[in-house]
């Protein structure tokens, strides 16, 4: 951020940081920044008569560690001029003063950015805290139920399966089980899976039961929707044989669930679009599935019963997404914002998503074009994003999330949903500062 | 109490060092036997092989009338005192002495009584509660002896038990030890590299060199008639003069002097043959004036031996030593003559005593 201090009078030096690195984690994103954004942006600025030098600061670590490093940097007035962060961190960063409203940092340019018009409200919400925009959304995602068509066929289930209620999922699971599928249903649970349990497990279920983590400034405790969600876990892991309780405890359980899904051992799996893009991808996935396009089906996550989901929905999902922020300490906030915006320009996004690196960008105009060849992402963009929900972007969320994971773990290891919900409420009160902030 | 017999005992260390080379030795019951030899000659190895701490490569060890070659050390019924005494530093004197009994599962009261008894015999009554670290060297040595005595073993093995003591204590200890062995009558093998110790204490002794025994005999035999130049050079508080000479008729020519043929070799030498003439400094009679048949030269060193002096003469470039009683010692540079006693001088041919 302060790097410009040392630069010669008219050269503006900018840095951009992401949790991505060439040859490692999110390599494609890193390549995009270094090979396209930086040269193009410098050229564009040159054309405007400004000499700008951009440096990319790569990283390739756990999100927690990236967050720690980012926080420490920002706290001490350092850090890159432009940096990425998980949308869920917006609130806590804002409260800590690590992030400031864009219009305060950059000025009117921020509000006048032409991209806003292309970004759906729900996605804009990711970057919004207390009604003000703190960053640019980088994209979004969504969760669906994947299923293995080969196994479904064996079990006599349709290839265009779309359950309407939780019971239908369980019924399908029974049939799969009867057909000898080792793991009929995998819904992430337990602490070992970490946030995957929350986002690909308990939160979609909670939403499906009509519950929300936080409502009107109060946290939801041992409410009926939570008990229902935990009850669903019990039906899968509590001796029915529909799920594999041990897998939920393994430190590398999620990896293994991917391997097993790719290896035709799991019938139904609740996951995000990342499974399709990054895991099963026949070319670049970590658990490649050569016949992904033929044998993997997907369906919306149903509410517990039709109309019982949040806002009376029949189907639900959860979404997250990254943000690209301008460092409040930046010496050149305007140029930094320009850089951030440049990375999210239509041309840029198209460039970034070339060569199979397709993801759901924040811009509808771009999505239309790039997703056309990707049925799943189109499906998510069209069908899921409109009905999806987001996590509360507040500091306490991380701990609440852990408490939720622990609640599912308790159910998997044999406690009743009521008991687990009560334990959750007790922990919640500890986290959010007393029973006054909790509604049950 | 039993005799010890070694038959063709051989010990080769891993690495190829042949420390004992087919060695035969018989030590009768009750004898105090000293093993003497330069460093590295195999004394310790011999002792340790008897004890079973090293396994013999070949040959047999017989104690009493048991062949113990294959037995564990603990089963051989022998006791050993190590050079450093090997007292356990964390046990007091009583416990140290009683340790072998504890291993033999003797009851606590019984073994403490035995320890007290043996300790008293060695004058340790006042020290029974101390730890080894609080004892002087001589006291430690007595504790080590007491521990050995408490075992009532068939034989005692001592590996240089006195060499850690200072010179004065050593003298006392050797008198003490000798007396004790005499009283107990236990067969004892005593290793030392101090020839004075061996001479003073042993009933019989053996001189070893690189895994072989070079001479066995009583101290007087070994001192007066060393069987070969090796033993001759090794035994004696001052080394024997070993001078190269040639037989010239009935006389000998030794470094330019004419000497008489010693009594023991009379008639056994051939004219012109090369021999080594050996005479101990104690048997060289010194005089300030020329004497027939003596070795004459200039005094180069005079060392005080207490009641006598060791005078080194430079006889035509060869050093010859003689012991001179006090009051008669010369000054450095004086002329002097050493007359060997014919009854004590010896002749070595090819390193072996004549007659063998």
């Amino acid at each position, binding site marked *: 951020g302060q790097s410009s201090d040392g630069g010669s009078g008219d050269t503006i030096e900018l840095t951009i940081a992401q949790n991505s690195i060439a040859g490692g984690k999110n390599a494609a994103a890193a390549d995009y920044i270094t090979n396209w954004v930086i040269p193009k942006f410098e050229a564009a600025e040159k054309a405007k008569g400004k000499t700008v030098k951009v440096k990319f600061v790569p990283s390739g670590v756990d999100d927690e560690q990236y967050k720690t490093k980012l926080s420490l940097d920002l706290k001490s007035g350092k850090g890159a001029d432009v940096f990425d962060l998980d949308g869920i961190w917006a609130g806590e960063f804002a409260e800590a003063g690590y992030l400031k409203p864009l219009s305060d940092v950059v000025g009117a340019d921020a509000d006048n950015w032409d991209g806003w018009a292309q970004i759906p409200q729900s996605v804009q919400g990711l970057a919004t805290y207390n009604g003000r925009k703190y960053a640019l959304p980088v994209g979004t995602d969504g969760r669906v139920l994947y299923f293995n068509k080969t196994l479904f066929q064996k079990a006599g289930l349709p290839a265009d399966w779309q359950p309407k209620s939780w019971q239908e999922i369980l019924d399908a699971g029974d049939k799969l089980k009867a057909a000898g599928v080792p793991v009929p249903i995998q819904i992430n649970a337990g602490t070992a899976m970490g946030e995957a349990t929350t986002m690909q497990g308990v939160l979609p279920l909670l939403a499906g039961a009509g519950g929300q983590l936080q409502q009107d400034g109060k946290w939801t405790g041992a409410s009926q929707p939570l008990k229902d969600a935990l009850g669903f876990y019990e039906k899968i892991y509590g001796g029915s044989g529909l799920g594999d309780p*041990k897998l939920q405890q393994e430190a590398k359980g999620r990896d293994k669930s991917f391997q097993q899904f790719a290896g035709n051992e799991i019938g139904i799996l609740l996951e995000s679009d990342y499974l399709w893009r990054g895991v099963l991808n026949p070319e670049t996935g970590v658990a490649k599935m050569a016949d992904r396009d033929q044998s993997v089906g997907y369906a919306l996550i149903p509410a517990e019963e039709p109309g019982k989901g949040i806002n009376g929905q029949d189907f639900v999902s959860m979404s997250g997404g990254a943000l690209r922020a301008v460092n409040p300490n930046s010496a050149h906030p305007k140029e930094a914002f320009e850089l951030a915006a440049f990375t999210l320009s239509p041309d840029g996004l198209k460039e970034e998503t070339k060569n199979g690196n397709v993801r759901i960008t924040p811009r509808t105009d771009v999505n239309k074009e790039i997703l056309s060849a990707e049925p799943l992402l189109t499906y998510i963009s069209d069908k899921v994003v409109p009905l999806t929900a987001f996590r509360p972007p507040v500091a306490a969320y991380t701990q609440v999330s852990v408490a939720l994971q622990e609640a599912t773990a*308790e159910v998997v290891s044999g406690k009743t949903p009521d008991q687990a919900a009560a334990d959750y409420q007790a922990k919640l009160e500890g986290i959010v500062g007393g029973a006054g902030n909790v509604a049950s | 109490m039993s005799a010890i017999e070694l038959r063709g005992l051989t010990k080769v260390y891993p690495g190829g060092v042949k420390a004992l080379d087919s060695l035969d030795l018989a030590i009768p019951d009750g004898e105090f036997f000293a093993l003497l030899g330069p460093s590295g000659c195999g004394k310790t190895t011999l002792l340790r092989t008897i004890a079973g701490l090293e396994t013999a490569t070949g040959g047999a060890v017989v104690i009493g009338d048991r062949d113990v070659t294959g037995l*564990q050390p603990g089963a051989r019924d022998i006791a050993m005192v190590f050079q450093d005494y090997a007292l*356990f530093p964390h046990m007091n004197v009583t416990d140290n002495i009683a340790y072998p009994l504890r291993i033999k599962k003797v009851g606590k009261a019984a073994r403490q009584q035995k320890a007290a008894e043996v300790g008293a015999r060695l004058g340790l009554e006042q020290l029974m509660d101390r730890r080894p670290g609080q004892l002087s060297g001589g006291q430690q040595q007595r504790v080590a002896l007491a521990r050995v005595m408490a075992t009532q073993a068939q034989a005692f093995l001592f590996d240089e038990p006195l060499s850690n003591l200072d010179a004065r204590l050593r003298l006392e200890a050797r008198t003490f030890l000798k007396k004790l062995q005499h009283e107990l009558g236990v067969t004892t093998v005593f290793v030392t590299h101090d020839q004075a110790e061996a001479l003073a204490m042993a009933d019989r002794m053996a001189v070893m060199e690189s895994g072989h025994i070079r001479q066995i005999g009583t101290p007087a035999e070994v001192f007066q008639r060393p069987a070969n130049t090796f033993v001759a050079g090794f035994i004696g508080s001052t080394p024997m003069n070993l001078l190269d000479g040639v037989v010239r008729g009935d006389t000998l020519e030794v470094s330019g002097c004419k000497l008489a043929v010693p009594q023991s070799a009379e008639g056994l030498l051939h004219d012109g043959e090369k021999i080594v003439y050996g005479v101990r400094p104690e048997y060289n009679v010194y005089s300030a004036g020329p004497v027939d048949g003596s070795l004459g030269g200039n005094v180069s060193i005079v060392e005080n031996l207490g009641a006598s002096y060791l005078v080194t003469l430079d006889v035509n470039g060869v050093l010859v030593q003689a012991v001179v009683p006090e009051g008669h010692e010369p000054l450095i540079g004086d002329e002097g003559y050493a007359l060997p006693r014919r009854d004590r001088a010896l002749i070595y041919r090819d390193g072996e005593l004549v007659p063998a």
Partner: protein
Amino acid sequence: MAQATLPPEVLDDAKARRYSADAAGLGRLRAGAFVAPALALISLFLVFPALWVLYLGLSNYRLTGAAAAAPQSVGFDNFVKALTDPEFWNSTWLTFEFVLGSAVIGQVVLGFLLAWIMRDRTGPLKRIVEGLVILAWILPSAVVSFLWVALLDRDDGTLNTLLHSQDFAPLLDHPMLSIIVFNTWRGAAFSMMLYGAALGNVPPSHLESARLAGASGWQQLRDVVFPHIRGHVLTNLLLISLWTFNDFTPFLLTAGGPDGKTEVLAVHVYQVALQGGELGYGAAVSTVILLINLVVAVFYLRLLRSKK
């Protein structure tokens, strides 16, 4: 070497005790100068931050959120919170199991066993055994954790392959035992080397006198070896207990799970401070760990001084 009338250790020992004074004529001043660089680095990069941690433990400092911008002193609230938190006690208990199992029993016993059976051996066997043991010690933990996941994996793990067993999941069914065995494997080298040196200092004649008296192997250990190496045992215990107490590597194997069954204190602090962002509370827990370490150290030192 030629004859030495005194065996070297007797001589060394006596000398060391008697002339422990300033052999090189250093003098206090120069001794100070020799210690200074180390002390400077230690003060700056260890004592100062460590005190800072103690101070942080008294605040509600967080990585993010409002408390990051303006941390407030909360007195001993963090400590009260820790001491009333069952998870903390759970972690403490697990840590004791971990330290007792893997350090005090595992590493010490295995390290001693290795040193003992290798004590008067030379040649390739010794080199191979020692090399492998030390390899386990020096490999980076990031790599080692993979090795053990591969070993203990529920489906394809080498252990399952070797035992021809199905679905045997040590990390899930016996998580604590797994990390104890793991840490024993990982750390035995240090104890082995230390005891190797210690055993070299046991005078052979003491062992042999015991053998001559007919003592069995165990009796020799009890009566001769242990009394001799007590000091080494305690140094070793102190160091490896401290290290194991603060060892974070189990996290790489089990991530504290399943269900917190292996969430030892070091992992607990990691989760509290890094994943939960509660730096003040994390610092307080660290302080408590420090105090526990202190108690352990004092306990060992007492033990060392007692029978002297």
